[in-house]
């Protein structure tokens, strides 16, 4: 049963409240009794091993798959909030002659690309790219972009609709370390300016520990949730089923590695 309920006057600092969420697809139970709340105006990271149902949870939030239980949004007074979705990747062959401007116009205008783009649309694409520090990419083919560049373009597309909530699926998966830092800093800036509620899925615990204020450990159901201090060895063991530790990094950043001792 698909139920999206709205604010009933609960604590204002909660953006989304999920109760007893369950998803079963092709007779496989993917999520079970997921109960959690996402804080308003903060960055929440969803971590967990492969196949833990992280992407499924995002799809349920987007309302794209059937689920049981309830999801309540408290971001705005009435109805469903605008959710900006930044997918992990695009599926295309490198030969597809689609420029960044083509891609972004598709989200902005119904007018078929082959009838040309209006000046207004071109200007909006330019502004959108400026917002994410990607001006100059307009005429590049999407197949020639680096992972970080494509991620910024996808972010610009998601921001175009002035979302209340931003969902990012593995935003740093295809990006090198400097690009990752750049992207996360950009995300923090945008979040602060627009008071966005950000939810990101990540494999990369170092990204999580740097850029999230709230963590949810997911493996079919919620294993733990809370502030960054939730990332204890015990909780990570519970989520991943093997020992993970935060190690002090040479630059002073903690890193997390699996350890082999049982």
């Amino acid at each position, binding site marked *: 049963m698909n139920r999206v309920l709205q604010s009933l006057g609960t604590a204002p600092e909660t953006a989304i409240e999920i109760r007893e969420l369950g998803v079963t697809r092709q007779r496989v139970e993917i999520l079970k009794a997921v109960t959690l709340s996402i804080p308003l105006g903060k960055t929440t990271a969803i971590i967990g091993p492969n196949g833990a149902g992280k992407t499924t949870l995002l*799809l349920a939030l*987007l309302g*794209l798959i059937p689920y049981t239980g309830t999801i309540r949004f408290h971001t705005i007074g009435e109805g469903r909030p605008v*959710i900006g*979705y930044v*997918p992990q*990747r*695009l*599926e*295309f062959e490198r*030969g*597809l*002659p*689609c*420029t960044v*401007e*083509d*891609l972004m*116009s*598709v*989200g902005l*205008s*119904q*007018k*078929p*690309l*082959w*009838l*040309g783009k209006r000046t207004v649309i071109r200007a909006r694409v330019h502004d959108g790219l400026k917002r994410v520090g990607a001006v100059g990419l307009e*005429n590049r*083919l999407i197949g020639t972009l680096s992972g970080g560049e494509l991620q910024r373009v*996808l972010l610009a597309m998601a921001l175009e*609709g002035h979302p209340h909530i931003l969902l990012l699926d593995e935003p740093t998966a295809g990006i090198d370390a400097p690009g990752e830092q750049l992207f996360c800093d950009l995300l923090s800036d945008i979040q602060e300016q627009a008071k966005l509620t950000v939810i990101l899925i990540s494999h990369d615990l170092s990204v999580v520990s740097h850029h999230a204020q709230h963590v949810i450990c997911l493996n079919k159901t919620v294993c733990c949730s809370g502030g960054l201090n939730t990332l204890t060895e015990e909780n990570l063991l519970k989520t991943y089923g093997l020992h993970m530790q935060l190690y002090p990094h040479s630059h002073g950043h903690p890193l997390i590695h699996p350890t082999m001792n049982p």
Partner: protein
Amino acid sequence: MENFFHPIYAFLATITPFEWAQFDFVWRALGAMMIIAPLCAVLGVHVVNFRLAFFSDAISHSTFAGVALGIFLGVNPLVTLIGFGILAGLAITLVKGRSDLSSDTVISVILSTIMALGITVLYAQKETRNLEVYLYGTVLAINDGELLLLLVLGTFVFGVMGFLFNRLLLISLNSQLAASRGIAVRTLEYGFSLILAVVVTLSIRIIGLFLVTAMLVVPAATARNLAGGMAGLFWISLFCALTAGMTGILGSFYWDTPVGATTILIGSLFFLLSWLKGRKA
């Protein structure tokens, strides 16, 4: 109908200083090609994006069984042909959605089943001359009624495809992203498959069922080698299809070759040139 179209052909004949221009059937063929070639080009862009080349091959080749059955039962093969084309499209989509097998496996199973059925039915009769009409296409035998039907359907489909162009592009790039932006992904995917089935079956009369997929894929593939943006992809694809189609008809007149095959050979020549140019760049 004859009265409506004939003066147009007569007028065109007076302003065109070539031998072929005095024949109405050449004008009808050119008219039909001017509708079908752009339609194939427009759909072909998406067929390549969605990797549906094998799917459209399956639809066109499945109509073979429709033709065989039509001849066997003594009904107009055009009716059974369209029926089998749509039936194959629906069967593939249905089985694919309810199976863990990859789509090329599902397509292959259904295509072989329908082909085997067609051959079995065909074996039961001696007279197969009618069949060749559909295998190779007979644009030169098209009549005014069919031309009018093509014009109406073609204009409608062209309009719908213009409306859907941006949405289909986004679906092909990431269907979840498209869905999150309020695009009815499932409906449009089914809708596109249906339109594809209809256009493929309509084109069989012109190009022949062996070569319909080439008319979809070759111009779009050529355009991919040359275009620097999606608008370029569309227009180059359209230009290639139209030029190949027109020269195919007129070339067949001078060289005494089949129209469909001549069209595709010219299209393939365009592809070869575009590929060489693309490699150099």
